[in-house]
């Protein structure tokens, strides 16, 4: 299983190894977290550079109350829930969708939201509810589905949304919560939709070095290299777009207009982080009839901060997974206590896989 540009990667590593200072760099995006573990990137960095994981794994920041709501909707025996795989293992406050599935509830794991159309058509007697979770990257897809469902006049397909926006949480973390990091690796996929603009505030308003990066090994090393250069020379602080092959300055205008057509901003609680104003995408008035909350007449309860683990502090980069007392003990990928362990993109899961079980225990001792 090969990697492209191995020579270029090695040259980049040699240049990074010259950095003798200390730097805490946060990768915002869960896919970056996953790839850093996959390539063993931490093992190739100088000791002074620490990579911490941010809030960009959609499953990780989804509140327990959202899972509880999905389970409540399933009380209706005519409901069929469709979800992406990771989400079904997320613990709610009482149970997970996986446990509900084992009890016989109708829950399907799918890879494409389009499967929801097929399910709705094949089961006219059922109310199909799709769990729409994600960031700006997946929001346009769900927007397109809602519009298509509207056009086809489908009346048994609904969306329980937990879609979130990146810019408000960046403001919240860097401003309100005064997050202390020396640089941010920004999510290339989100930027491909939004354009560079929402990330510009990181350097321009908060003075923190930032680099929008792709997801191959060379992209990530290039991002780290860019950030340590900015860290070494304060004059150079900027939001660098290192993923120009996918990210245009104004992003994907068609996707953005789909989002604007179907969704409206709303306040939402991020698991472990708290309420972030205007950071959700909810289905707007025009398409409200596809909103599962509207259809079933319920609200997502505020289930408060989970107290069994430090997912919140981990998502804010305040501590690393090894610093959580639950990590590797009461919280493992097979029995996750917190969302960071559930998703393969979650910081704890990535750490766990990277380090192996026994070392996790040593770290948490």
């Amino acid at each position, binding site marked *: *299983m*090969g*990697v492209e540009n*191995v020579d270029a*990667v*090695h040259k980049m*590593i040699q240049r990074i190894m010259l950095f003798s200072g200390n730097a805490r760099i946060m990768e915002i995006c869960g896919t970056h977290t*996953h790839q850093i*573990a*996959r*390539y*063993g*990137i*931490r*093992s*190739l960095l100088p000791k002074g550079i620490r990579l911490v994981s941010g809030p960009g794994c959609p499953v990780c920041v989804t509140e327990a109350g959202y899972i509880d709501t999905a389970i409540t909707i399933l009380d209706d025996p005519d409901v069929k829930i469709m979800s992406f795989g990771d989400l079904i*293992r997320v613990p709610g406050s009482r149970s997970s969708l*996986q*446990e509900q*599935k*084992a*009890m016989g509830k109708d829950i399907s794991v*799918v*890879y*494409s939201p389009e499967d929801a159309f097929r399910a709705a058509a094949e089961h006219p007697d059922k109310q199909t509810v799709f769990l729409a979770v994600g960031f700006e990257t997946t929001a346009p897809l769900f927007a397109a589905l809602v519009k298509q469902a509207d056009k086809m006049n489908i009346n048994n397909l609904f969306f329980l949304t937990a879609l979130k926006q990146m810019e408000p949480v960046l403001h919240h973390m860097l401003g309100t919560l005064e997050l202390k990091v020396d640089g941010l690796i920004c999510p290339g996929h989100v930027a491909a939709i939004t354009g560079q603009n929402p990330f510009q505030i990181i350097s321009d308003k908060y003075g923190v070095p930032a680099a929008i990066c792709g997801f191959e*090994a060379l992209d990530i090393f290039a991002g780290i290299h860019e950030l340590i250069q900015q860290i070494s020379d304060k004059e150079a602080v900027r939001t660098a777009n290192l993923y120009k092959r996918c990210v245009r300055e104004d992003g994907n205008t068609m996707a953005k207009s789909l989002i604007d057509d179907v969704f409206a901003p709303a306040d939402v609680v991020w698991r472990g982080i708290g309420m972030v104003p205007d950071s959700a995408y909810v289905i707007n008035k025009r398409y409200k009839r596809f909103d599962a909350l509207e259809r079933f007449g319920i609200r997502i309860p505020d289930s408060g901060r989970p107290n069994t683990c430090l997912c919140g502090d981990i998502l804010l980069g305040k501590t690393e997974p090894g610093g959580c007392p639950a990590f590797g003990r009461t919280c*493992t*990928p*097979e029995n996750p206590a917190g969302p960071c362990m559930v998703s*393969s993109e979650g910081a704890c899961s990535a750490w*766990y*896989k*990277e*380090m*192996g*079980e*026994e*070392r996790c225990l040593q770290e948490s001792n």
Partner: protein
Amino acid sequence: MPARIQLSHGDGGKKTSALIKEVFYKHFGNELLEKSRDAAIFALGDRKVAFTTDSFVVQPIFFSGGDIGKLAVCGTVNDLAAAGAEPLYLSTSFIIEEGFEIGQLEKIARSMGDICRQVGVSIVAGDTKVVEKGFADGLYINTSGIGVVMESYIPRDLLDGDEIIITGTIAEHGTTILALRHGFQNEHICSDCKPLKKIIEHLGEALCHVKCMTDPTRGGLATVLCEIAEFHNMGMIIEEEKLPIHPHVQTLHQILGTNPMFFASEGRLVLFVEKGQGTKICRLICEIEKDAAIIGTVISDDRKFVRLRTPIGGQRILTILQNEMIPRIC
């Protein structure tokens, strides 16, 4: 352990192993069973015999490269091969759902018969049960098999420097089922399901240099490597770049964000051979399996870590499959 069986209890990973230990070993554990090898090996008269059993619930029952019948014969024959045994006799049981097409059943039986003839084994005992419509999904097949262990094969402890060989490209069976389930199938992704008997025969006397063998089925290559490391109290270094993988398989996993190292093969063998013998044995295997490769080495490590050296020189630690990737692949 949760109060009810979840699908992940059947994925061949961590939960399966916990279930087996906590429920089955508790009630009928014995020294032979608890070795948890591909087949039990014991003496009958003056011969060493290998005995194994396996059930097949794959969905869909027909897939590119095989069907549930071919899989049922290969699965058991390969467990015997991995135990270094020449397979001789099989038994089979069918649990069939009311309404199943007899034409399809015959197609499955034919493919079982064909593979048996090809391998030189006979199905000598069988059973048929039919359950009401809705109480099974089409049909399930069990096979058990018995074989005689080759005298040249002497399983023994792994030592620092022993070499690790895989006989071909990884993850193709599991990936084929994954692709079918999710509508990503193409003509390049095809199950590797096939009997491994030929490789064992081809190695012949050279088997004396092989210390341990296993077939990376459920849980994939990562899981079996971790199990062997655990069993032998050794670590391993695997070179990611040396892992043979079909480009279409790799691409599909990149798209889906899944890891091929956790996906099953049904026609591959992993061999641990004496230090210094790897190149010779691998060359021998390559005469009949062109993609065979040395993928790593055994190292002393009391933590028993299986480390993967990534193509850029980074390292990460492989664990056994933690969560179901996709149910009912075999």
